[in-house]
């Protein structure tokens, strides 16, 4: 838990790969780039709005109730955003499906809005929410790049509002594509390997620090 107090970064203490926050979403929707980007935006918006509101509430809510309050605020924002996505971006809503609703218990969002902070910590964490969401998005995009290229051979981005394809690159010929990467097994594999790489990079940084 000590790591949660340290600063997070793109590589150092990456929220998904080192702190393992928001892992469910990271495994479930990273089958293609469009999904990952869409989810990143949703997480960002929810974290920002949530951190604002939770920060305000934390000032007068007793410490025991902070988590419950954060969850309720989370639910409200996620439900509204879910409805908006279904109404105006139905294709994205369709492929993300139930994962949007599952964001209510996404540990990254709860962490960003300050549900897990210590008792004394009563500041409004907007900057923290922003940064954490960005680092998380970096991780989501990274996983989805690997999974989509290896699992489907193409890299494509579809505009969720209009449905048109922004770009569609064919990278790996379809004969060499490994469908496994689009399935849950592939997700676990990719996240595990990337987490190991990130752990190694972090370890090097820690070692360097100690030597200094």
């Amino acid at each position: 838990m000590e790591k949660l107090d340290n600063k997070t970064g793109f590589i150092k203490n990456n929220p998904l790969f080192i702190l393992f926050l928001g892992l469910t979403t990271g495994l479930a929707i990273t089958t293609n780039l469009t999904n990952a980007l869409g989810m990143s935006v949703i997480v960002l918006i929810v974290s920002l709005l949530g951190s604002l509101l939770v920060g305000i509430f934390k000032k007068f809510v007793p410490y025991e109730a902070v988590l419950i309050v954060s969850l309720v605020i989370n639910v409200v924002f996620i439900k509204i955003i879910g409805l908006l996505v279904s109404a105006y971006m139905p294709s994205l809503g369709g492929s993300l499906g139930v994962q949007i609703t599952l964001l209510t218990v996404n540990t990254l969002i709860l962490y960003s809005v300050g549900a897990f902070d210590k008792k004394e910590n009563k500041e409004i964490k907007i900057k923290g929410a922003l940064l954490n969401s960005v680092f998380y998005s970096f991780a989501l995009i990274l996983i989805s790049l690997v999974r989509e290229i290896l699992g489907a051979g193409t890299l494509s981005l579809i505009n969720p509002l209009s449905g048109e394809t922004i770009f569609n690159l064919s990278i790996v010929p379809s004969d060499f594509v490994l469908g496994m990467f689009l399935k849950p097994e592939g997700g676990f594999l990719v996240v595990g390997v990337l987490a190991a790489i990130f752990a190694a990079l972090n370890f090097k940084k820690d070692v360097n620090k100690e030597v200094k």
Partner: protein
Amino acid sequence: MKNNKVKSIIIVLVLVIFSSGILIYADKALTPIINDKAVSEDKDALVALFGEGENFIPVEYTDESGLIKKIYEVEDSGYAYIVENRGYADKIEFSLGIANDGEIVGYNIIHLNDTEGFGSKVGDDEFIEYVEGKTSTSVLDTISGATVTSSAVINGIDAAKAHFNEVMGIEDDGTGNPDEKNDEPQKSTIDFGEEIKLFRDISSEAKGNIKDQSEDGSIIKYTVEIPGYAVLESDYDNPEPNIVLIEIDKDEKLIKSVEILEIKDTEGIGTKVDHEDFLNQFTDLSFEDENASVDAVSAATSSSTSIVNAVLAAIEESK
């Protein structure tokens, strides 16, 4: 501390009530837009099935399977169905059009999120061509390697077919052959083959086992388990014996009746022995006569023999 607890509860309650209010409002405001999007999506699917200029009338229905989302009657042309089922990883939604003559004129995927190369095959041209052209009484096979997904689609198609057949008054006997009427295949005649004598030596493995018997005066009913073709000659997995109910008049030395309770031999061949023409041969057959015999069902000699062996076991038991 108690003060804090009360404060917490009140704050949470107020927050929840307030949030519910916001959410109900948001839901009310946005659901119509979501529905409109869905209806216009439907419109595209319907037009894709039956073409422009058709009149699509929504239909009230009762659907036991729960898979049919919407039914539209296409005036003078047929019926269009929006079907949704749970696939392997995600829901599957497709539209199905059945013309008035029973032919499936259209099958289009609306939503499919299953595994690429496996479940995704239900959206491939090959499967689409397989489905289109089938009728409302055809039987559809699943795709090997994509069982979960294709079963979900086929169950959905079956639900649509069931509604269509009910509305049109078509009988579907599940054999996939729309010409066959599903009444009493027993009425068909059977051919007889060789003669089987009642009293002869049979190997111990072919002998019948008396499972149950009940006596009523001189009438004894035997339930006999008899190894048939499946057990003795075939290489079926887990072959089972046939079960026969034989009624004997002990005093008169007559076989009163033979009824087949379970026939486990080859469907369409050995099962032919379950026919009144064959079984009636046993009625009032006297087993005092050592040369008593019946004729086997042609091409079902082993199964016929097993029935005779069962009768023999009953006769032996009654002595």
